[in-house]
């Protein structure tokens, strides 16, 4: 693997680590583990922990994928491994 491809892959892994950490936080932490604590706060008529489990985590998932696509398309171009 050339040096260039190596840094490309490392950056990819860094993006994955960050995005998947957020993925874990919004669902497993906010929606389950910390939900009881968060339920003392209200978002309109929603207790916050309940909102994360039934709504918020799903919105976050969608945003995460689109951010990933944006970052990777940019990265592909930078390292000249993108498709025509």
């Amino acid at each position, binding site marked *: *693997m050339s040096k260039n*491809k190596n840094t*490309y*892959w490392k950056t*990819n892994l860094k993006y*994955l680590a960050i*995005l*998947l950490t957020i*993925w874990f936080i919004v*669902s*497993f932490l906010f*929606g*389950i*583990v910390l*939900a*009881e604590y968060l*339920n003392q706060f209200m*978002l*309109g*008529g*929603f*207790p916050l*922990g*309940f*909102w994360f*489990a*039934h*709504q918020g*985590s*799903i*919105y976050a*998932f*969608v945003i*995460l*994928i*689109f951010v*990933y*696509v944006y970052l*990777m*398309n940019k990265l*592909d171009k930078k*390292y*000249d*491994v*993108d*498709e025509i």
Partner: protein
Amino acid sequence: MSTQTWTYLLVGLTFLVYIIIAIVARAGSTKEFYVAGGGVNPIANGMATAADWMSAASFLSMAGLIAFMGFSGGQYLMGWTGGYVLLALLLAPYLRKFGKFTVPDFIGERYYSKNARLVALICALFVSFTYVVGQMKGVGVAFARFLNVPFDTGVLIGIGIVFFYAVLGGMKGITYTQVAQFCVLIFAFTVPAIFISLQMTGNPIPQIGFGSKGTDGVYLLEKLNLLSTDLGFDSYTNIDRGNLVNMFFITGALMFGTAGLPHVIVRFFTVPRVKDARISAGWALLFIAILYTTAPAVAVFARTNIINTLSDKPYSQVPEWFTNWEKTGLLSFEDKNNDGTIQYVADAQLNELTVDRDIIVLANPEIANLPPWVIGLVVAGGLAAALSTAAGLLLVISTSISHDLLKNYLRPDISEKGELYAARVAIAVAVVAAGLAGLNPPGFVAQVVALAFGLAASSFFPAIILGIFDKRMNQQGAISGMIIGIIFTTTYIIYFKPQLGGPGLPENFWWGISPEGIGTLGMIINFVVALLVSRFTSPPPPEVVALTERIRTPRGADSPSGQTH
């Protein structure tokens, strides 16, 4: 027009559309049959993936399930959407670059082993078949209730339609039919929700409506919590502390299982480029999220409406929909204290009303007094959901047989024409077999969906991830990981499922984890075993290491048929 006429009209119309699409999008080659020629637009593929994913269970059962579970129902919402993040980030782009037709293709080549391919093939067949039987049953139920045909006839009509467009069109026909089915099902799910949200809260967006104030100025959720606790039920938004570990594991098993399901993964082989595979997963989740964020709103509306309409009301004055559903046996009233009034309470000794959770979505428009065409629309939507998922699964079954088993295992010298013919025969046999099993489902079928997700999570998911992200992973590691993961998960599920003959009792669950959630643990075990074994055995051959490096960058992704295999 009556509800009946509207239902016939809308169901007939949508079926006509599916058939026309099937005729226009016939498959002419194996490439078209397996992966729709590899040229599907990413947004269209997103819609098809969404329709493929959202089954009769998502459409008909999930909102009802949540309505009776409250907070814990979030495990289905997060579990069945979160897996797409894993798919988009960890699997789809690399598998697309790999550029073959099936999951066993990848496992077989990455682990340079026919046995690994065979293990993957058996898992794929098992997972897909258990799943498809449930869909056929869903078709039968929807027909039976709304078109007044016997359950059996309903299943037979379903078989006929799927047979026609799946055998003719393969993945190409299925993909474009699924695009149409997505439009029907999402329209059918959201329209009643919007009406009801407007009725109850004045807000047309259900996702916001169920967190808004009702017509009486009280927050809807607050009111539902109060109604529930008054009747002795748990407060709707409250958290059952004792169930949190189990909820964590179930959510995980559903997410990792989603990312390992062959009929979902194969959808990302149908787009032209790696970047299309990434964005296609994004579109798919966006389209899925429309239904998955509406469902919890429907759950809250329905639960509130049921309590308001029925609790403490005289039985002689129940609305017409109540009597209709009573006839199906899915709703029943037993006047235990002979006062002629419906007591709907948590205490099983005193409770007089039994509501089957599966009727919530179908009955919801009637409960809210919506016009008859909305009810017809919901039926057409439910059928679209069941048919699209069934077709996607049947394709995986037929591909597994004609491509993985026949072409790559038994008779490598088979011609393209012979393989396409075999694929058509396989899908025809699979449709009929699934239909027959749906007519007469063995008692265990409903119970094995847990097994389908558990198996996908504990077998495919780690094997694929390691195949991409760990260059040192070899066949010894991957195969032992898969086998131990599968054996552990299957044993635990069978042992703790009385319906499968297991002697285990819930109080003996490990850390309170129910069979539905054990796939998460099976997956972790698979990862650990695979990593350990691989480090103590010989490294993979150089050409496999080169393959692993090749799939890590997008450039040069051939269309799937580009390679002679």
